[in-house]
C-alpha cells in the first residue's frame, strides 16, 4: 500500500508541475500566431485533450482484450476508468474546438469545414453507449465481458469512421485548410510538451479512478459478506 501511495504522490506532483509548465509555455513562451492571433493558443490544449481522449479509448481496447484473455477484473476497472477519463477529455476537446471554430469561422459547429468535429462527436456517442451498456447489464462478470467486447468493436470502428468522414467531406468545398505541420519550432516544442503533460495527467487520473473502482469492488464484497453472513 505504501509503495503504491508513493507512485500516486509522484504522479500527482509530476502532473501538477508539468501542467503549470505547459501553461507557461502556451501563454508566454509560444509566439503569437500571425493570422489567427492569440486565439490560436487554444490549439495546444485542444489537440492535447483530443489526444488524451483517443489514447484513453485505446487503453480501453487493450484493457478489454486483457480482461477477455485473463479474466482479471482489474483490467475491467482500468477499461472503465479510461472510458470515463476519455469522455471527459473528448468533451473538453469538443467544447474548446467549438469555441475556436466560433472565433475563426464565426460558427460554433462547422460540420462541413471540419470533419474531425463529426468524428469526435461520434466518439462521444460510442463511449456514452459503452457506459449505458454497463448500466443496463445485470451481474458484474457479464457486465465486464460485454463492455470489453463493445470496447473492442467500438475502437475498431474508429478508423473507418475517420476515413468515411474524411472522404465524405471531400465532395464539399474545402474552405479552410489547417497548416497542421507547418508550426514554428517554438510552437512545435510547446505543442509536444503539452502532449507529454496531458499524457502524464491522464495516467494520474487513471490511477486514481482505478483505485476508486477497486474500492467500489471491495465495498460490494463486504456488502455481500454481510448479506450472506459468510466469508467469501
Amino acid at each position, binding site marked *: 500500500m505504501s509503495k503504491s501511495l508513493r507512485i500516486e504522490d509522484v504522479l500527482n506532483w509530476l502532473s501538477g508541475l508539468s501542467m503549470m509548465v505547459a501553461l507557461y509555455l502556451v501563454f508566454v513562451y509560444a509566439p503569437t500566431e500571425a493570422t489567427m492571433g492569440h486565439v490560436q493558443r487554444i490549439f495546444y490544449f485542444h489537440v492535447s485533450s483530443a489526444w488524451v481522449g483517443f489514447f484513453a479509448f485505446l487503453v480501453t481496447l487493450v484493457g478489454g482484450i486483457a480482461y477477455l484473455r485473463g479474466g482479471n477484473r482489474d483490467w475491467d476497472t482500468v477499461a472503465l476508468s479510461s472510458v470515463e477519463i476519455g469522455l471527459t477529455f473528448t468533451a473538453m476537446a469538443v467544447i474548446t474546438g467549438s469555441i475556436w471554430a466560433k472565433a475563426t469561422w464565426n460558427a460554433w459547429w462547422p460540420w462541413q469545414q471540419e470533419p474531425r468535429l463529426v468524428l469526435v462527436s461520434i466518439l462521444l456517442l460510442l463511449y456514452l453507449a459503452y457506459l449505458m451498456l454497463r448500466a443496463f447489464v445485470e*451481474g*458484474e*462478470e457479464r457486465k465486464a465481458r460485454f463492455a470489453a467486447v463493445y470496447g473492442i468493436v467500438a475502437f475498431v470502428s474508429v478508423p473507418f469512421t475517420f476515413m468515411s468522414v474524411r472522404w465524405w467531406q471531400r465532395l464539399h468545398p474545402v474552405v479552410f485548410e489547417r497548416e497542421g505541420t507547418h508550426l514554428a519550432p517554438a510552437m512545435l516544442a510547446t505543442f509536444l510538451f503539452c502532449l507529454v503533460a496531458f499524457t502524464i495527467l491522464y495516467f494520474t487520473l487513471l490511477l486514481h479512478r482505478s483505485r476508486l473502482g477497486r474500492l467500489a469492488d471491495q465495498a*460490494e464484497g463486504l*456488502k*455481500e459478506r454481510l448479506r*450472506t453472513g*459468510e466469508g*467469501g
Partner: protein
Amino acid sequence: MIQVQGLVKSFGHTYALRDVDLEVTQGQFLTIVGPNGAGKTTLLRILATLLKPTSGLVRIDGLDVASRSAEIRRRIGFVSHQSLTYSKLTVEENLVFYGRIYDVPAVKERVDTLLTLVGLEARRHDAARTLSRGMQQRLSIARAMIHQPSLLLLDEPYTGLDQQAAEMLRQLLQTITAESCTVVMTTHNLQRALELCHTVAILAKGRIVHEAENTSLTLDDFQQAYWHYVGDRWPR
C-alpha cells in the same frame, strides 16, 4: 461417470456453489433436493457445460468440462426448466433441427422412435406452442435424448405439471433409466425426489450437506433429515 471435487462457482461477489464434492457412477440415478437459491440449477448448468466453474475439478467420463466441452456435449442431454424448443416450429421440425446440429445419423428414424417413446406421434405436425405443459415437457425430454446421451440432466422436471402429467413423466423417466442411462435430477419436491433415484443429496446454500442411499429411506425420515440440514430456510 461424474466426478466433482471442490467445485466453486461465484458470480462477482455472490457465491452460488461453495466447495461441492460429488460422485456419480455409471447407470446411477441421483436426485438433488434443496430450497430455491441453493445452487441446484447452477450445478446442473456446470455439468451441462453451459457455465464454467470458477474453481475446482469437474469431470464427466474422465473429461474435464472446461477444456473438453465439445466431447462432453455429445454424451449429455439436458432438460432445462425452460423447454428449449422453438414455439413456431412443429414438434417434428424442432426434433429434426436438433438432430442436425447434433450430427445424428438417420434423423427421421430417430425422431420417429422418440415420438413414440414420449407419446407425441399424434402431435408431430402441430406447432410446439400449441402443446400443453406436460406435452412440452415430454417434447423437451425427447429433444434432450435426440443424440442418445449416456447422461441425462433434468432441472426441476416436475415443476408446473398437474398430477396426470407428472405421472406420465415419472413412467417415461422409469423407461429411460431402465436403459442404464445415468441421470441427475433436481427437484424441491421431496416425494418426487425419492420415487426413482438410487441416491439422494441435499444441497443448501451452495454446499452438499447430506447424501443418502435410497434403499430403505422413508419419506418421513427423509423429511426429518431435510429439515435438519436445510434448517431455517424451510417454512414450518
